[in-house]
Structure formats: C-alpha cells, structure tokens
C-alpha cells in the first residue's frame, strides 16, 4: 500500500468511525431526553388523568396545572423552597468552615478526626432517622412543623461532607497565608480577605449541591412529615399521587407538578453548570 493510499484509508476509517459515533450520540441524546419530553407532553393531557400507553395527548390543555393549585401542591412547593434555600446557605457556611479548617490548620486531633468521620460515614444514615424523628417529635418539629425540623436534619451533619471543598482549598498555595501572616493578618482575616475571594467556584458548587439535595429529598422528608400533608415537601406529596389508589386520578397532575419542580432547578443548574463540573471533577480525583 502506498503512503498516500494508506493515508486515505486512515482518513476514510476515521470518517466512518466518527459517523458511527455521531449516530450513537444522537441515539443516546434521544434516549436521555425522551422521559423528559414525555413528562412535559403528558402534563398537557386533558382527556384522561391516569397512565396510558401513548405519549402525545389527544386533547391539549393546562387543566393539570390549574388543578395543582386546588391541592396542597403550592404549600409543598413553599416548604421545599424554604427548606432548600435556608439549607443551601447554612450548609455552605458549615462545610466551608470545616473544610477550610481541615485544609489549613495542623492540630493534634486533625488526623483522628478525619478518620473518625470516615468511619461514621460508613453507617447508613437511614439508621439514625428513627431516633431523630423521636427527638424532633419531642421538640415539636415534625408533621405540620416539619420544615424547621427538616432544615435541622439537613444541616446538622453537613460538616461530614467536607471532602470536595477541602480538596479545593488544598490547591490554594499555603505561601499566600504565610505572606499574610507575616504582614500581621489574623487567621480570620486570611479566611475573609484572601481565601474566600479565591474560592468562588467551590462556594457556588457547595451552594448548588446544598440546594439540590433538599429540593429532591424524599426519605427524610417522608419520615419527618409523617403523613401530614401540610408538612410535606414536593417529593413526598408527588410520590403519594402515584399510589395505587390515587394514580388513576392524579398521574397527569404528577407530571405537571414534576415539570414545575424540575424547571427552576434545571435553569439554575444550567447557569451554574461550569462550577458544578469543576467541583465534581475535582472531588473524584482527590477521592
């Protein structure tokens, strides 16, 4: 085979494999998007309310959306929103405190503490729900008052999720701190004036993940609201609509509710996508 011909062959095979990959990516995109397209389409279905074997509605309308407002859905939505917002703020503060400390300070208990938290993390978190439920019940923070209770549960142990942001802080050179120390800055000033301005990506990542956790949480919310509708979040409320005895009446409402829940968080996520990717990648590499 002459050199030119071989080159042509390579080129042809590359073009062929690229076409195959393009085809594959198109198929994948379809598979990945179909459920979401279906859910949007079905939320506009008017002729029936149960699950059906076809996708495109025979009759279009926004009935499902207007019906949502006659249920407890707005209440659930507010619960979820408040819980997610407050959790996002407080959890970020706690996680940053913890990870900054473990990254920057060298104190006697540092290694044992990190090992201890690693071991704690191996216990299934679900296990502690039983007792947390009883404690919160004694404090009056369950059922109708579930939102403060939920926030407490979400943020209380968030110090254990320090890995990703600690990995980020580790990459900021210590010489910056030392230079500031020489100039007479206190440790607190170093954090506020030097480290935090440099940490915008990881702060945004932490806020984003801290917001999305409560936004989609099901199991803790179900425990703490314990069957009381006014204390539920969207996940628990919408889940109940798919129960055997309710699905025939509320399946399309579930779709409509799902769309309303998914849209804001998706928009937020798309805007902050860059930071999310950075955080996820960094977290995996550092373990």
């Amino acid at each position, binding site marked *: 085979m002459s050199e030119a011909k071989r080159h042509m062959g390579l080129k042809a095979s590359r073009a062929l494999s690229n076409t195959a990959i393009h085809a594959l990516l198109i198929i994948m995109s379809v598979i990945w998007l179909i459920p*979401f397209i279906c859910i949007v389409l079905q939320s506009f279905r008017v002729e029936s309310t149960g699950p059906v074997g076809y996708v495109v509605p025979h009759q279009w309308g926004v009935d499902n959306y207007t019906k949502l407002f006659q249920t407890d859905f707005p209440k659930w939505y507010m619960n979820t929103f408040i819980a997610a917002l407050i959790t996002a703020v407080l959890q970020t503060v706690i996680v940053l*405190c*913890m990870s900054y400390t473990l990254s920057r300070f060298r104190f006697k208990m540092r290694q044992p503490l990190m090992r201890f938290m690693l071991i*704690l993390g191996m216990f299934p978190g679900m296990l502690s729900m*039983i007792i947390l439920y*009883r404690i919160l019940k004694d404090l009056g923070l369950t059922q109708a008052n579930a939102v403060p209770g939920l926030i407490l549960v979400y943020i*209380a142990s968030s110090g254990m999720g320090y890995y990703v942001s600690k990995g980020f802080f580790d990459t900021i050179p210590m010489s910056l701190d030392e230079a500031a120390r020489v100039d007479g800055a206190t440790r607190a000033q170093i954090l506020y004036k030097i480290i935090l301005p440099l940490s915008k990506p990881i702060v945004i990542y932490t806020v984003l993940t801290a917001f999305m956790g409560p936004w989609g949480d099901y199991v803790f919310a179900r425990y703490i609201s314990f069957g009381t509708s006014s204390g539920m979040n969207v996940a628990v409320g919408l889940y109940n609509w798919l129960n055997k005895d309710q699905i025939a009446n509320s399946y399309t409402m579930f779709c409509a509710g799902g769309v309303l829940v998914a849209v804001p968080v998706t928009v937020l*996520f798309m805007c902050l996508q860059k930071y999310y990717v950075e955080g*996820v990648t960094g977290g995996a590499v550092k*373990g």
Partner: protein
Amino acid sequence: MAQISDLEFLRLSKAQKTGYKIRRFFTGIPKAIASFFLAVWHAIQKAGKAVGREISEIGTTFKEGDWKTKLSFLVMGFGSLARGQILRGILFLLFEIIFIGYMILSGGYWLSMLPSLGTQGPTKEYNALLDVTVTQYHDNSFQILLYGVLTIFFIVAFIYTWRVNIRQNRMAEKILATGKPLKSGKEDLHSLVDDQFHKTLMALPLTGILIFTVLPIFFMILVAFTNYDGTHNGYTNNLFTWVGLDNFNTLLSWDVTGGAGTQSYAATFGEVLLWTLIWAFFATFTNYFLGMFVAMAINKKGIRFKKGWRTILVLTIAIPQFISLLYVSKMFAKNGIINGFLMDMGWIKTALPFWEKPNWARITVILINIWIGIPYLMLITTGILMNIPADLYESARIDGANAWQQYRKITLPYMLFVTGPYLLTSFTGNMNNFNVIFLLTGGAPTNPAASSAAGAVGYTDLLITWLFKITTGAESQYYLASVIGILVFVVVALISLIVYNVMPSIKNEEDFR
C-alpha cells in the same frame, strides 16, 4: 504465598502475571484483616499508655502544685481565678456548677435507670372522681436510653474539661516561674480568631455532628441489643429492655419456624446481601466503563457539537431524581409507555414483565441506573481524560499500537490509578443507594417466601431499603433494623479495609506521577 521479586515477576507470561496478581489479591485479604486487628490492638495499647501517662502527670501536678492548684482539683477554675485569668476561671466554674446541678436533678436518675430501661409500664387506673378508667404512664424506656447516653457523653465531657483545668494550672505555674505574665481574657478572646481559629470554626459543625450523627448512631447500636419495636415502644404500650445478643441470633439463625415467612431470617438476609453486592458491582462498573466510553467518544477528534452533547447529558443530572425515577418506573410498567409503544409497533403481543419477574426487575434496575449514572461519570472522566499527557498516545501510535491497545495500556491504567478511591466510595455508595431502588421498584417484586414478617422484603430490595421497610411497617422492628444497619457497616468497613490495604500492591503504576 511467597512474594516474588520484580525481576521474577517480569519473567512470567501474561497469564501467569494475571494469575499472580489475582492470587496476591486473595492471599492479601487475611493479611489485611490481621493487620487491621493488629492496628486496633496497638491503638488500645497506645491508649492505655496515654492514660497511664495522664494519670501520673495529674499526680505530679498535685504533688508539686501550690495550694491554688490543689484546690482546683475540687473547684474547677479556682487556680485561673486566683491567678487573675477571670474569663477562663468563670467558664470552668460555670461548667462544673452546671454539671453537678444536672447530675443531681436528672442525670443521676437516667444513669440509675439505664441498666433496666424502666421498671413500670403504663397502667390502667380507675378514677373515682370522673368515673373513667385512665391510662397512667410511668417510665419511658426510649427517654431513659436517650438521656442515659447523653448523660454518659456529658460525663466524658466533664472528665475531659476537668483534665484541661488541671493541665492549665500546671502550665500557668510553669509560665509564672519564668516570670512572664499569663494571657488575659482579652487575649484569650483574640486567639479565638487567630491561632485558635480552628476551634471557633469547628465548634458548630462538630456539635452538629455529635448530636445528629454520633449520638443517634450510638443510640441505634444500643437498640440492637434491646427489643424495641412497634409493640414495645417504651412508653405508651410496653417498655423495652435489654436482650443481649438475641437479635443477632434471630437475624443469623437458619430456623425456619421463627423466621420471616416460610424461610429463615438468615436465608432472607443472605439473599438480600448477595443482591446488594451484585447490584453494587454492576451499578459501579457498568456506569464507570460506559461513562468513560461516552466521555472518550465526545472527546474524540472530529466529533462536532461537543458542548451540546455534554449539555444534553448534564441536563438529566439537574432534574430531581424522584421525578425522573418515578416517571421512568411508570414508563416501564405493564400499562406504561414502553409496553404501549412495543405493542403498537406489533413487536410484542403481551406486555413485558419489567417489574413483575425477579430477574427482569433486577436487570431493568441496573439498566435504568446506567441511564442515571452515565452523565455523572461522563463529567468526571472527561476532565481526567484530558489530563493524560498527549505524548503518551503519540509515542504509542508511532510504535504501532491500535486504539484498543492504547486504551488498555494507557487510558485504563491511568484512569484506575486516578479514580481508584472514587471507585471504592462509589461502590459503597451504591450498596446504600436508596433512591434508585426505592423510587424505581420499592423492592418489588415481593418475595413470597419472605413476605409475612420482616417488612415484606422483595427481590430488588437492598439492605438499606429493607432496613427502611422494617422501620415503617406495621410491626416496626427497630431492633432488627439496627442489627441490619450494624451489619451494613461491617460489610462496608470490611470492603473498604481490604481495598485500601490491597490497592497499593495492585496499584504499582506510579509511572504517571
């Protein structure tokens, strides 16, 4: 098995090398476990020595100290107050007063009740005045256990503070002996934002972890040794009490009669554990390799709209799982869209039993998990793949390596090296992947042999969803849930331990660093 030298290893054939590595892995397991227990033993020895040292130091502090120090042994903070460190002294003294007050008012009661967890359950009493029978509640086992544990925590904290108080006296004496002044209260406060800043920063997070993670875990471990369940809730119906190792015996017994349904607890537990491990294995590695493949496909030279493909996949991360998973679960249902579509096309006559047959359900769950997982793995691996030095591929191509060889010899070792710890956490995370299983199947299809007791365990139930079902069912066997939780911990810890200990020997590919 004897370890062979590097030179001998290189002489082996390819198959022998693989065999050697596999044998090394498995022969390494007992050693890893042994080294763990050895490490625990050393830690105990070290702790014993440290305690001895502390006690002797306390002794010398008392012997050599002046009267202020000696009085501090009884009245905490006295030394600090007498030496002019007012702030520290007041804090110590306040803590002691609170502690003693608490112990007298309630701590002593909880501690004294802890061995029995309460003696008198609720009673029915006739009230002559109102002519009704009312239920009188007495002891509360749950509170006794909870506050008993809290009291023990408090006592430990007190002993620690007392020790700090002693040490401060010793240090203050030493500093005064050199003629330097002690720190004032103002300086103490300032140090909280400076050289003691870490204490300020960690105070809140660690308190949260202590109360909302450590305390509940401690409590639930203790519950595994009681008979706390729906019919013994410790207050309104029956008290619960210590039962020793009975619950572990129940869960691990092959006795069919007392078991869950028509099969023994041990058989049920074994089945669920096996499926949990199989699930974790497939969920981790299918996602890992397919995600890597997708990332490589998008990264490939000549592929257009790279950003667009990534955005489409990332979009699916943003949508809360309870929506996407619940919806997908209904799509695969008997009357769902998938079956409807297939029947409309005339490809099948009757609906496919995606969720009805055990193995169908298991495979469907794994397939849908791929749908969930690929975007994450695509994101994670994209960045790492780009970090692989391009000249490695360049030289491999010059040497005539084809794409598969390049992947096998460069990409894969590099990826495994960099993401090794991630794979481990992902494996243990998948073992406890509540969301995917619970929202997709809820554990169904139910295992008829194990259905009656033990929370109606199903064929796709993981240990974690089983645990959840047990605590929410009518019988609410909390003690059984605790035992399962402890066993989950043991399994996860064991796997982590083995992998951590064995990984460095497998991971000899330091070439990349």
